[in-house]
């Protein structure tokens, strides 16, 4: 029976570990004692822990025992995690990550300041970080409408495993396949990865709409126009629009924009209900990736003159203290009025 590794014990990491446990032994790496205790007690973040899962705080053990590893940690901690894992990794390792965020490394080594223009060469996807920090080449990512709590309940769902390598896709599919989890494949790694990352922006916006008590028309407008903005940003970063129209793009977008379960949605909803950004962020248990992604998207829009009204509006709410009402007004009256302009 194969042994799979998972790095990260958040809700998605735990959900993936449970799926993997249906096809093999699973080693899950974690850093906190209390999480270890939860795992040992058989339940973490509301999810039962499969008996084939062994929690560990030894990264070396995970790398030595598993050839196929799924890193699923926040984008902020991703590089650090890779630096710690790198000494134990070998060229035959396969890493398929499930992190939906981006990193920016500015030339002066500092963090991106909100409102600062950003060039694409300073943006790193998680797959770029794996390559930069280790010698592993067989890299992939999973992305799709995979709300951890629904997966944990055993509801049917689909995901995409994407890589340049057949071998990575095939082994990823074999490891994740289950009667309740359908795995699709794609060679367009950048497209799949960016779809998952960029949809978080729309998820926050959708939360705002939900929080304002607005209806389906407004949400549909957001999803369709939002998809267009995601594609524009994706193209700017070198991806084609293809994957944005698949499971990892539209699929994930519809799920996250409709579900109050998602973290990004929750951020938006609570803002609309009157809380401040810092109030919400300080009380969220897990990282809200979309918050950082908005800042990066705004930086790209400034540098490359991208027309991204939803990103702009959300940016001014999150980082400039604008009111939601003002931004909605702005969105409804801006001059962009060509439908499906991302196809041009």
């Amino acid at each position: 029976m194969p042994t799979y590794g998972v790095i990260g014990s958040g809700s998605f990491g735990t959900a993936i570990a449970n799926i993997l446990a249906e096809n093999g032994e699973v080693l899950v790496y974690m850093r906190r004692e209390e999480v270890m205790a939860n795992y040992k007690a058989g339940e973490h973040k509301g999810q039962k822990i499969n008996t084939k899962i062994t929690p560990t705080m030894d990264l070396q053990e995970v790398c030595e025992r598993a050839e196929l590893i799924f890193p699923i940690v926040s984008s902020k901690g991703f590089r650090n995690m890779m630096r710690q894992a790198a000494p134990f990794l070998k060229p035959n390792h396969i890493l398929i990550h499930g992190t939906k965020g981006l990193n920016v490394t500015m030339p002066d080594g500092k963090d991106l300041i909100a409102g600062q223009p950003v060039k694409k060469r300073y943006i790193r996807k998680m797959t770029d970080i794996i390559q930069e920090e280790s010698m592993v080449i067989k890299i992939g990512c999973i992305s799709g409408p995979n709300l951890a709590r629904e997966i944990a309940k055993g509801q049917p769902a689909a995901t995409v495993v994407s890589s340049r390598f057949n071998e990575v896709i095939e082994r990823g599919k074999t490891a994740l396949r289950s009667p309740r989890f359908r795995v699709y494949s794609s060679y367009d790694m950048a497209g799949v990865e960016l779809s998952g990352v960029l949809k978080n922006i729309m998820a926050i916006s959708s939360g705002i709409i939900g929080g304002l008590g607005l209806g389906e028309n407004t949400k549909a407008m957001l999803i369709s126009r939002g998809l267009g903005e995601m594609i524009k940003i994706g193209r700017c970063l070198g991806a084609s629009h293809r994957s944005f129209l698949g499971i990892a793009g539209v699929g994930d977008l519809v799920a996250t924009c409709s579900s109050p379960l998602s973290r990004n949605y929750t951020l938006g909803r609570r803002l609309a209900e009157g809380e401040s950004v810092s109030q919400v962020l300080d009380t969220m248990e897990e990282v809200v990736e979309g918050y950082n992604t908005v800042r990066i998207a705004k930086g790209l829009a400034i540098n490359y003159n991208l027309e991204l009204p939803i990103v702009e509006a959300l940016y001014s709410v999150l980082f400039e203290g604008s009111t939601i009402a003002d931004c909605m007004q702005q969105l409804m009256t801006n001059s962009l009025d060509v439908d499906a302009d991302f196809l041009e």
Partner: protein
Amino acid sequence: METIQSKTEELAYTLSHERDEHGHFVPVLEDLKDWPIYRLGKSRDTFVPKLIERSIEQAHLMSGTPQKLHDQIAQALYLERIRIKHDPYKVDPPDDKKFWKSMNERLVKSSLQNANGEVLEADAEMLSSIISRYAHEIAGNFNPKTYRFASKVLPMGFNRFLNAANTKRFWSGKFGIRDRIKLTGPMEHVRELSQKGTILLTPTHFSNLDSVLIGWTLHQLGLPAFLYGAGLNLFNGQFFKYFMNGLGAYRVDRRKKNRLYIETLKMYSRMTLRDGCHSLFFPGGTRARDGQLEKRLKLGLLSTAIDAQRECFTHPNGRQLTNPNAENNRIYVVPMVINYHFVLEAGGLIHQFLEKQGKDKYYIDKEIFPSRKAVLQFMQKFVGAKSEIFLSLGDPMDVFGNKVDLAGNSIDRNGNTIDISNYFKTNGEFKTDLQRDSEYTKLLSERIIDAFYKKNTVLSSHLVAYTAFNLLFRKHRRLDQYGVLRLPEDERKIPYAQFAQVVERLRDALKVMAANGEVQLANHMHGDIDRLIQHGIYNLGVYHAKHPLVKTDSGDISSEDMNLLFYYHNRLKGYDLQSYI
């Protein structure tokens, strides 16, 4: 980490002794008879039959079924008939027509036979004859006498040209080629690795003079001659034929685009690399017609580096024969960037590029080597203007793009040694996986391109051309690229103050990028901005009759030749600098 550190220090110590009293590198292999290229030539009689055998195997493998093999032979014959009729070369063998005619007759007969799912005997024979013919044509010959002659005469000729402008120093020999050609990069590292394994040099390609400069570079580094593919058309002229034949060039015929030829050519490259023969690829294929750094490389030839490295582990063979001194079975890729202030063939190349653009898939495959008169004129101008050429070697890497230390080990960021054979393994076993290896090839090409951009030395001429073209483009934003190229002369003026301001802004941005290792700047890029602009405009204008940039009487900046301006501006394309304009 500690052990690597001490090993590096030890090597650095021994390396410092490898120069003669004039500061020149001593040859890595003193005796020409020890050179891999010489030994390959010596073993030609055993090498070529192996090449034929493996190329036939490969043709069977690639076609998959007997019917597809038959179809491939038929296609090769069809394409060869067209080539003979429409594009004959002087250097083509006299029996070319007769050979292909006889093949054709055999094909007709074989088509009538029933194969019953097996490869027909007639097809197998034809395949063998065709591949054998190709293999003999491709395999080169290295003649030490020609090499010695060339390596003495060419630099002498070079020096003569260079000294012509400075007659006082002509006899003293103090003012030599070394002052005008700036070679930078990890030279000692490359020398060291040439003794550990096989070097694959992958330079940018802008001019036919590149080959001469690379030959000179290898000689300066004290390295043995490298194997390289030369267009068969170069063998047409007696003068070049003599050198090419003697210098160990293998022949590449761009007219032959059929699968059987391509596979034989790739097998030749794979086997020579595997057997330890230092080689040179221009990975961009042909000279960059638009003047831009290569953005996409030809993967066919590059894939042979991955194949060769894999076979070093799975089929070690022949290396002892060709490169007995090699300590390991590694291939080291060394990118190289060549920078000129002005390019010999710029006018012709950009004309071809613009003609080609818009005409989908139009391919110019006639390479015309510049006349001796043009080369002479170029050299005279080069010397007269005291212009410089910049050659930058990139850091050596393995075929997966990992860094390589002085001892020849692949290392990761943490300084850990990587056993690269594991890249070809799954669950601890070597596994054949063509899709995987084709992705490795793409990754290698990405790493080489990355190195091109990082090791590119930005010159004043590039910067002023980039600034001027972009300012004109922005000023006439309603026009497309062609519209800007057709601007009438009075529309091409840029006020000097505006021009200088943008040049400075770009220069400062480039400085930050250079500090971050994203690009290199020539020394003249620092300091006073007016001087830099003057230097750039002057150097751009030295060679071309119509100047790409001029300073008008009123002090404005203008252009006499927009196509050339576009060509030189392209050198800084791809650095994402538009937002500074």
